[in-house]
């Protein structure tokens, strides 16, 4: 529990005057994401602690090095949770890294991504200036949304010092149904179920089974479960097994690359056909996120992320069109004119 903002700012100031590029590191739990870059580490791991937490306002503010697992613990004491339920990466993942890499869990289609719960943040830019954007209130449209711009920026715009997040009450009831159907059949069903008024917080297909998680008030969950079981024969999954399954999905543990294997991730239209991405896969987010292990790029025409493994010097994110690319470069320059932060981490050209 320490506020190292001044020290971090000092480090950025020094890097700026000596023109030394930096790589921002939290707990280093996500080093496998993005391209590998070598630069002087600037570490937020000790910059931790919950700055304020007001359960009745549904808002928590924490320093960027605070671990997701610690946030979850603090919230659980008041029966609250992070709506985007991000991976914890062996209890190491930090909130700063979660925002920068835009990590959300299985409930993403229904409860939103990090950006949907992010209310504000503190940032040190490439001028070594400390700035605050957004805030602690639910609605705020003063100035550009520099807060949400950080989601997925992979630290290219600056060092996030603290974040404010909107939290939600814990679900009162939770259950998981399993249905034995193949991939193609699952993809037929997923969008239909996903867009009904059901308390769904997860739809996955994995190894011949479709998993559907229902969470909310007890009566709503029970009502939904019996309704779905009438539509398609299935079974209730044991609560412990269900918890473990969704943990593995969230932690991205079901598919792990070995040797020269690569873990590929695709996000796209939930109704894209099963053939879109060949091979045995994990289908998550009701069809909108798909994961597959393969040595070579499994589909040429798809915007795939080379998520983990393989050559990390090459581009790992889908190619970007020239206009988007130009804007991202100009934005990078607007925040980090000397090219200090995580240069080349998301794209070789950024």
């Amino acid at each position, binding site marked *: 529990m320490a506020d190292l903002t001044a020290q971090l700012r000092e480090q950025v100031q020094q890097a700026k005057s000596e023109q030394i590029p930096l790589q921002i590191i939290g707990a280093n739990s996500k080093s496998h994401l993005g391209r590998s870059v070598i630069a002087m580490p600037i570490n937020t791991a000790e910059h931790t602690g919950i700055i304020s937490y007001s*359960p009745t306002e549904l808002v928590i503010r924490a320093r960027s090095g605070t671990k997701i697992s610690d946030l979850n613990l603090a919230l659980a004491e008041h029966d609250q949770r992070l709506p985007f339920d991000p991976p914890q990466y062996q209890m190491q993942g930090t909130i700063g890294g979660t925002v920068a890499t835009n990590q959300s869990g299985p409930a993403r289609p229904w409860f939103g991504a990090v950006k949907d719960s992010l209310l504000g943040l503190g940032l040190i830019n490439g001028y070594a200036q400390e700035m605050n*954007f957004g805030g602690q209130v639910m*609605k705020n449209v*003063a100035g*550009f949304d520099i807060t949400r711009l950080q989601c997925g920026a992979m630290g290219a715009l600056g060092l996030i010092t603290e974040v404010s997040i909107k939290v939600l009450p814990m679900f009162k009831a939770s259950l998981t149904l399993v249905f034995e159907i193949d991939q193609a059949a699952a993809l037929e069903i997923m969008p239909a179920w996903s*867009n009904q008024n059901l308390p769904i917080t997860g739809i996955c297909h994995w190894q011949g089974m479709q998993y559907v998680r229902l969470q909310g008030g007890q009566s*709503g969950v029970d009502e939904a479960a019996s309704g779905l079981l009438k539509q398609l024969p299935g079974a209730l999954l044991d609560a412990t097994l269900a918890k473990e399954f969704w943990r593995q999905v969230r932690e991205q543990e079901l598919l792990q690359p070995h040797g020269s294997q690569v873990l590929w991730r695709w996000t796209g239209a939930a109704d894209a056909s099963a053939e879109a991405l060949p091979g045995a896969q994990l289908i998550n987010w009701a069809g909108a996120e798909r994961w597959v292990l393969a040595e070579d790029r499994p589909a040429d025409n798809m915007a795939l992320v080379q998520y983990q493994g393989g050559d990390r010097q090459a581009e790992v994110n889908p190619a970007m069109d020239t206009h988007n690319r130009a*804007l991202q470069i100009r934005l990078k320059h607007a925040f980090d004119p000397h090219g200090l932060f995580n240069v080349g981490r998301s*794209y070789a050209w950024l």
Partner: protein
Amino acid sequence: MGQPTPNFVDLISALQAMLPVASLLVDDENQRPFECDGLAVYQQLPLVTVIPETLLQVQEILRLCCLHKVPLVPRGAGTGLCAGAMPHAHGVLLVMTKFDKILHINERTAEATVQPGVRNLALSEASEPYGLYYAPDPSSQIACTIGGNVAENSGGVHCLKYGLTVNNLLQVSMVTIEGELVTFGGDGLDAAGMDLLSLVAGSEGLLGVVVEIKVKLLPRAPRVQVLMAAYSNVTAAGDAVAALIGQGIIPAGLEMMDHLAIKAAEDFVKVGYPIDAQALLICELDGTDAEVEEQLQTVSQCFTDYGAYQIRVAKDDQEAAALWQGRKAAFPAVGRISPDYYCMDGTIPRGQVAHVLTRISELSQHYGLAVANVFHAGDGNLHPLILFDASIDGQLAQAEALGGDILTLCVDVGGTITGEHGVGLEKMPQMPYQFSDAELAQFRRLKAAFDPYELLNPGKGIPTLKYCQEYRSLHNG
């Protein structure tokens, strides 16, 4: 009307060459309807108004403005409340209302692709046959456009549970000042790189012209239940709101009105509001029967615990609509009891509602101007309506001063100067209060990344360096 510059003469002839006669307005009389947005105290005629019909025309107009270095202001329906769409004296006003087509509704994935001039309500109406609707519903939804909603990141009474415009966007295509078409977001839920999709939301026409939007639609809830609770003091109502949310109940909507607003609304639409009440809460719950029943118990209990002296649970859709009608008509209702009113839009932490309302009533007495309060209580988003008479010398200035004090009060208690209406021209004076010079400079550099020549809606949203310096010397010296 300002003086046409030589650049401008070239621009006009280029516009005349490419646009049909009906798409180009040059005389004052025809341009008069466009001289202001919903905040009519700010008015300005542009040099020329263009109302294009095709994407290529939009691209060409921007290219020409860029070439001739002429300012351009985009406009939707002009319902904005911060003078964001007020024309530029030396510029082009680009009206996007001809882009009014719903291009596609994907029933299976519950998504819609629309042109920016589509009216907010028209989208929900078109989605109705599929059992779907578009959640962000500003009270101006009959008239305001989705393009305007994106530019302001608009909210509505249902944003408490379903989010603002930004939370319901999937993809936006925008024309840059260079005339290039660029698309942010995509078919999927996440795109690699910085989140430019979210950045465009709320960018007030300062970064580009939005030409196509894909949004998420939601399934209509099988049951919607509206209830109203009356209180004999605002503090109790404010506390009830904080307590309810604190208990983990997130209603679909939770609105509050104070005595003056209640009376004005009731006189106007006669829906049976208790006119002796000092505060009214209007709460909407949605979900399945079982869910709504469960919540209704908790909510009624909470309202009673905090001293509601009357609770009315709508028995049918008609009664529900009536309860909402009073709230939705609150602005025009206040318009009936005062020659002019000025709508503010600060957001505060919910726990501060009672404190801030008390402070507002003190300020109201100090300035001698009445204030009616209507607001999105669940989000802590206040809409104090300052009543004044512009025909009385000095009253507008008084109203603006009172408004400014309310906004700085919002910042002081940890909130913001605007929750959903945007900064526009109107809230420029408060920007340096909420943001430091470094932060404002960062905003300017961000804008320059999109608009290096400062042609897009200049003078709005983000104060210039000079403006900030003047502000600081005035307030620190």
